[in-house]
């Protein structure tokens, strides 16, 4: 098969057309990196199951059509629909542009736009380079005190005038001893193809406690690549839950650095995948010192012709004694055409560690289905009930109370939709 390559020449032209400012030098450096290394292909071990052809195709179409940034003005209704469902203090990035109109200045939260002041970026990955090269603006957020409402971060893209591409870049620093609740929602509007690429860096300060929810409900024409890099301070805690409900091609990379002793993280995820979708979750935890614990459970429900990938890597570096690392991945395949590639990876170079992993792939429990039917529920009802039950546990783990109702209704609506497809 002929591989599609990102048109670097067109990309360079597009980058040069961007307005001069705080980000100019960063863009140039990122472009040089990208020119040298290119985007990852399936020959890279980490990209074995996911090719970026759809993202590259959308990018090339957008570049050859002039690479204009779609206006964010028509997104008002879509934005309001989302933010009215969760009581949070919302920062919005719409079509790659920062929109502060929904944000209320709050003591304890400081927000700086990259277009005003760009600090040095870490560009260690090709997709982060692509992000930096095309960046219009971004957000640097510092949270130093607990706030009444959670911080909401909405990344929303709309494409109505042909294929489009947008970048979102956010840095969040949670200060020492601070409690913070964060909701990241990636969504879409419009009918055309879109490629959204986001980079979020989260720094959790010493003894800070962060509860983080990630929701992704893009529509089927949208491609998303998203990277979340987390670094954990001494004795800090992070509780996170991710919900991937939409998108044609979705690749999430979550990298967590445990570089200080005493940190504790749990991160769970639910992905619902149906006809025409490909959702890939790659997670990596670097245990550099002990004691520290990490625990993740991802669950997937797949129906129709679709594919999901879960790759959970935990590296326990030399000297990271007292590490406790657990990972689990469970999948429910409702169709013969659904495929899951599940891969736990544990690399242990320390002595005193507790590590576990478990992966399951299965169908609905026949004995439970029969039991429900003997109680008068038809096959469809019974299937729905058991599928919901499989997801319910993870809905219950959403660590930000203000988002639970919204997650519940989004997941339920998506599940009902997914179960419409005939199981084969």
């Amino acid at each position, binding site marked *: 098969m002929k591989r599609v390559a990102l048109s670097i020449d067109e990309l360079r032209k597009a980058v040069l057309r961007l307005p001069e400012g705080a980000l100019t030098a960063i863009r140039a450096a990122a472009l040089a990196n990208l020119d040298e290394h290119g985007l990852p292909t399936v020959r890279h071990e980490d990209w074995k199951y996911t090719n970026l052809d759809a993202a590259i195709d959308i990018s090339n179409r957008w570049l050859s059509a002039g690479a204009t940034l779609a206006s964010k003005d028509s997104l008002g209704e879509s934005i309001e629909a989302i933010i009215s469902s969760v009581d949070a203090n919302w920062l919005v990035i719409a079509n790659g542009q920062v929109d502060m109109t929904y944000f209320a200045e709050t003591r304890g939260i400081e927000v700086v736009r990259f277009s005003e002041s760009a600090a040095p970026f870490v560009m260690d990955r090709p997709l982060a380079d692509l992000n930096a090269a095309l960046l219009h603006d971004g957000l640097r957020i510092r949270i130093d005190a607990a706030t009444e409402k959670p911080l909401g971060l909405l990344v929303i893209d709309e494409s109505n005038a042909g294929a489009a591409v947008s970048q979102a870049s956010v840095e969040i620093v949670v200060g020492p001893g601070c409690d913070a609740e964060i909701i990241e929602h990636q969504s879409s509007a419009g009918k055309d193809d879109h490629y959204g690429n986001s980079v979020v860096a989260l720094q959790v300060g010493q003894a800070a406690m962060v509860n983080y929810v990630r929701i992704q409900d893009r529509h089927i024409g949208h491609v998303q690549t998203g990277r979340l890099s987390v670094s954990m301070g001494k004795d800090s805690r992070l509780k996170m839950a991710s919900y991937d409900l939409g998108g044609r091609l979705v690749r999430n990379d979550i990298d967590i650095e445990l570089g200080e002793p005493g940190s504790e993280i749990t991160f769970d995820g639910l992905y619902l995948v149906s006809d025409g979708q490909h959702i890939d979750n790659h997670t990596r935890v670097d245990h550099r010192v002990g004691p520290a614990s990490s625990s993740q459970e991802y669950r997937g429900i797949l129906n129709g012709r679709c594919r999901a990938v879960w790759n959970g890597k935990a590296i326990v570096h030399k000297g990271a004694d007292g590490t406790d690392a657990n990972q689990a991945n469970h999948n429910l395949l409702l169709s013969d055409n659904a495929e899951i590639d599940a891969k736990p990876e544990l690399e242990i170079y320390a002595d005193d560690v507790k590590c576990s992993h478990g992966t399951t792939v299965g169908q609905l*429990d026949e004995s439970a289905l029969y039991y429900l*039917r003997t109680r008068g529920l038809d*096959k469809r009802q019974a299937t729905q*009930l058991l599928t919901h039950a499989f997801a*319910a546990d993870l809905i219950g783990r959403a660590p930000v109370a203000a988002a639970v109702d919204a997650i519940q209704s989004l997941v339920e609506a998506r599940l009902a939709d997914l179960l419409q497809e005939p199981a084969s």
Partner: protein
Amino acid sequence: MLEINNLKSRIGDTEILRGLSLTINAGEVHAIMGPNGSGKSTLAQVIAGHSDYVVTGGEVNYMGNDLLDLEPEERAREGIFLGFQYPVEIPGVNNAYLLKAAVNAKRKHQGLDEVDAFEFLKCAREKMAALGMDSKFLNRGVNEGFSGGEKKRNEILQMAMLEPRLAILDETDSGLDIDALKAVATGVNNLRAADRAIVLVTHYQRLLDYIEPDFVHVLSEGKIVRSGDKTLALKLEEKGYDWVREAASA
């Protein structure tokens, strides 16, 4: 109500029921006894509609219709209830939710409106109290982490809420202590009615001390080899199943 005529059934390649005939009328309580492997549970599952049990011969008529034509859920809505020997644990499915969904599935089939939520809860709590069940079980996952006795009480609770025409209780007495046995028996006795039939599938006579059957049948090698009144169960207890086998082959 139920007429079984020369029923034959297998699971996999194993023939289990080999020409079983039985008639059950409204208002009657039947006990079906027999040694392990005689086909008691198979009979219960065939009536409930388990797809692993293939019917290879004979017929089953329920309320004037061919029962074997119906899906398990249709049988349930037509008033057949099977109390499982091993009730299935379904984590994540709320017990109250299932009870209500079951009651509503039946009501819908009967052309009735959905049950009122308040009335439903009140009714469930009353029936639970009568069974010695804490109402907190309503909010647990179906049978999730229940003890053996709790699972059986939960089956009886479902039966009480569904008010079946024909209730089949498969080894409901197994694994119960005496208090649980009494509670379950009371639950069953409360449901005895002129328009309802109850079938008790049991290995031991003990349950019949608390629920008095009108008829006792003994199953051996997939057939009913002896039928009688409650004294048959006592005789069986005294003489053991070998007596029946000998009588059957004689």
